[in-house]
């Protein structure tokens, strides 16, 4: 049994950081994120016999996590507590050729959080975690064509958000008790 445990640890635990990083941006609450990852790892452990050694462990784990996440519904799915507030009169038209490489991490992070859960999910998985469209289709249980169009829309939404950010700084207001 110990050997099986060691095997599972070497297969699954290297991905716990990635899982937690994505979980944090799905639940927006560190404790809930940890619960989600723990539940994911537990289910993976229990289903470890079905896992074929040498296959894509990371995609397998993420698929489990999203199954858990979607199953838990409104309990864990949340919005960020801070909501961007557009100051009046800042309707500067976005200029072409924005140099996104100069944006600081906080702005990028906020822009990502601003996205809808659907868009945020595909950006996290494809851009941040580096999954292919095929892997995304497997993880989210959606057709690959849907993955691609969702990703295109998400990228567009992200760029619009960032282009407006660089044109006019956003103010934030706290939104109490939003779940």
């Amino acid at each position, binding site marked *: *049994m*110990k050997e*099986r*445990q060691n095997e*599972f*640890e070497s297969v699954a*635990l290297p991905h*716990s*950081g990635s899982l*937690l*990083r994505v979980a*944090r*941006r799905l639940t927006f609450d560190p404790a809930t994120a*940890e619960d989600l*990852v*723990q539940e994911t*790892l*537990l289910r993976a*452990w*229990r289903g470890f016999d079905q896992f074929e050694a040498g296959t894509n462990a990371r995609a397998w784990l993420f698929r489990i996590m999203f199954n858990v996440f979607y199953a838990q519904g409104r309990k864990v799915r949340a919005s960020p507590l801070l909501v961007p507030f557009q100051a009046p009169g800042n309707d500067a038209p976005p200029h072409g*050729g*924005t*140099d*996104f*490489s100069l*944006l600081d*991490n906080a702005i*990028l*992070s906020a822009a*990502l959080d601003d996205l809808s859960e659907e868009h945020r999910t595909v*950006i*996290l998985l494809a*851009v*941040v*975690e*580096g999954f*292919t*469209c*095929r892997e995304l289709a497997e993880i989210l249980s959606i057709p690959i064509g849907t993955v*691609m*169009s969702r*990703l*295109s829309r998400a*990228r567009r939404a*992200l*760029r619009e958000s*960032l282009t407006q950010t660089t044109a006019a700084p956003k103010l934030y207001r706290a939104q109490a008790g939003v779940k």
Partner: protein
Amino acid sequence: MMDCNQVAELAPFYLSGELDRERAAAVDAHLRSCSSCMHELESQARLDTRMREAIAGEPVDTTAVELWIRARMATDSHGKVTAISRRPSRRRWLVAAMSAAAVLLLMAVGYRVLMGPHLGRVYADAALDHQREVVEHEPRRWLSDRAAISALAEGQGISAAAPFAISSGPYRLERARLCFLAGRVFFHAVYTDGTREFSVYFRVRGNDSLPGSPREMDNGLLVHSSIVGGEQVASFQTKTLTVVAVSDRYSGDALHAARLAATNL
């Protein structure tokens, strides 16, 4: 024929090598004639990289999670609790890697200022790309399937045999992807002997000639070479290809790689 809107949708998948051959060829054809779409693609690629750095670079502490699952696994098996060991933090590695990348970025920027526009940037970009993607193993989408690599090369107008021709002696082609150097798409192949790695970047030759000091002639091909940051960069051009080799050592691996490429292409 694709229009700019279609290309804008498909371009990121083109870059990651995920488009089928027909669509990849169509996107490629459009990009070669539409500089504004090329700039958009490059801007998108840069945004992707920045997003990845910003988010994947955030420190994350998995200690509690790992302790929890270890404890559950132990009790889940036979009801006996086994010893729990603490895993070393990966944060230190991340910080070190990021500062090294930052230094290299500054050097690359400085190099660009010296070398001027266009292909002058290609060595700085190649050195930085190799440092981040190969040496530091940042998460990237690599193709390691031989057929996929051949298809990717051919999609760029590079004969599929070319990248494999360099696999010789202990070094073999392990993975490949597309990337941007100096505002142009290059085919990036990584070769390894199991412990050491070097990168070779291929591109169908245009009218540009490469900067740098000519070092030697191999098979009548001129080899330029330079040291950029902590990387050695060596390059040459055949009638049809521009080739840039990068290794992260001063032992002359890049020159050796370029020589290998020159004799085999």
